[in-house]
């Protein structure tokens, strides 16, 4: 079984958000870039599942749409424990464009489970996971707060109004996860940090995709 975790590179929101040019542009000077917190928890859960799988989960790949400047953040994911990484060499434009790129990555790598954070802490679109699932025409479950694999059966919990539901899902599928999927993001250890540069980070060029939404600059 192969797991893909989609990640985005976002500014550390515990630092101050500043805008420039008459408040129209995000000021990225001095900003520390981090793995989107929801994606980091998704990665943590994926690692937990792999460790408990007794070898049935063969690899965990992270994928990110972004330019070369996102690589330090991608390597952080490798340091935490992902086996390899794919960077689609393009500016992450709207969610539709990003999802189209990730869909291509999924098609090429035939992953069984794809994990996406429910939103990113910058543009809060909550869109990429669902769009990606539709592009590759597989089931998706959103607001996933628990993901378990028991004898090859994959089940998820999702929170609904006034309670929660447990669902069984057919593979491949996309889980759009929220906080709670893992308690705390994993802290990389020294060995992981040392290994990060040695693990494969493949750069692929983007496929043609439309941009349907434009942010005002």
């Amino acid at each position, binding site marked *: 079984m192969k797991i893909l975790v989609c990640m985005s590179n976002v500014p550390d929101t515990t630092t101050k958000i500043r805008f420039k040019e008459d408040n129209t542009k995000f000021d990225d000077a001095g900003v520390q870039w981090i793995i989107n917190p929801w994606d980091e928890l998704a990665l943590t859960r994926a690692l937990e599942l792999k460790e408990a799988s007794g070898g049935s989960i063969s690899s965990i790949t992270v994928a990110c749409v972004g330019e070369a400047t996102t690589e330090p953040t991608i390597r952080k994911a490798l340091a935490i424990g992902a086996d390899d990484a794919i960077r689609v060499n393009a500016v992450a434009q709207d969610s539709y464009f990003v999802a189209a790129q990730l869909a291509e990555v999924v098609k090429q790598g035939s992953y069984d489970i794809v994990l996406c954070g429910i939103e990113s802490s910058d543009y809060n679109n909550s*869109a990429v996971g669902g769009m990606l699932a539709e592009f590759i025409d597989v089931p998706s479950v959103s607001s996933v707060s628990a993901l378990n694999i028991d004898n090859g059966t994959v089940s998820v919990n999702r929170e609904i109004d*006034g309670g929660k539901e447990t669902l069984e899902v057919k593979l491949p599928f996309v889980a759009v996860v929220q906080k709670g999927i893992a308690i705390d993001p994993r802290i990389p250890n020294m060995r992981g940090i040392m290994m990060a540069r040695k693990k494969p980070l493949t750069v692929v060029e983007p496929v043609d995709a439309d941009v349907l939404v434009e942010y005002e600059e």
Partner: protein
Amino acid sequence: MSVLVYTENWEGKFKKLSFELVSYGYELAQKTGGSLTVLSIGNVAEEELKKLGQYGATKVVAVNDDKVKSLENQAYTSVIEQVAKKEASKIVIFANNFAGKAVAPRVSVKLKAGLASSVVGLPISYEPFKVSKRVFNGNAFSNITVKSDVKIVTLLQNSYGIFENPVETAIENYNAELEDSYGTKVTSVDKITGKVILTDAEIVVSAGRGMKGPENWTTIEELADVLGAATACSRPVSDEGWRPHSEHVGQTGKIIAPDLYFAIGISGAIQHLGGISGSKCIVAINRDPEAPIFEAADYGIVGYAFKVLPELLGAVKELKNS
């Protein structure tokens, strides 16, 4: 532009947000000279469907099929796609909530429609279609333009409001084409029936880290029970796993507008206040007289939650009994 609104019901009754969505859709249809169609999925009685007319729904398409009893993203996407195509909808509106986040992105790809999520209030312009959305976890807003022919909006709850525009409502029962089975199957539901839905509640009892631990929520729940209120919490509480995320109120959680809001042991970070500013009356209990919650509160009690709560609970019970 013809507008399609996707409404939500809970056990056959429309959620408050549905009325806001219909009010919003009505306004968009009016402004763009288009028609409004409202979609209801699930088992909703005709009498309840008619209620939507109060907010401007001239046409309601009702889909009631066992295959869409629970939220199956692909099935729902398919129903919405079929109705949107049938109605030649140019704008499809969802709530920016659990269901909206699950389905709207899929519909976006199906219809090749640009998605504007967590949109605040009415569009800034219709030609081009430009809206304001929340970004950076509610710490900023950004204007975005949707360039595609069909557009999808997920509306931030309570960012527009509910407005009455009574009209005659035509109801169409529609049989959507659905697959025999889908990739997900609900195996168990853990639902607390009889509980008030947070976003619909008139009274909300909310508590924060001042409660020290999840074991101390019994008095909060008891107070909510006595008041017929929903329970809520601040972000650190749900992040710690003391309470489910569905109870998290604030800019990054649920945005609510009850008549009465109790903030107990909540210091009142700006993000929290962003989620409750629509409340008609806020009562704060906090031991720190400097806590920012008191600036937002209409009534404040300075004291330890553990000391104040039992007395408050006693007083409310006494009042109820008298």
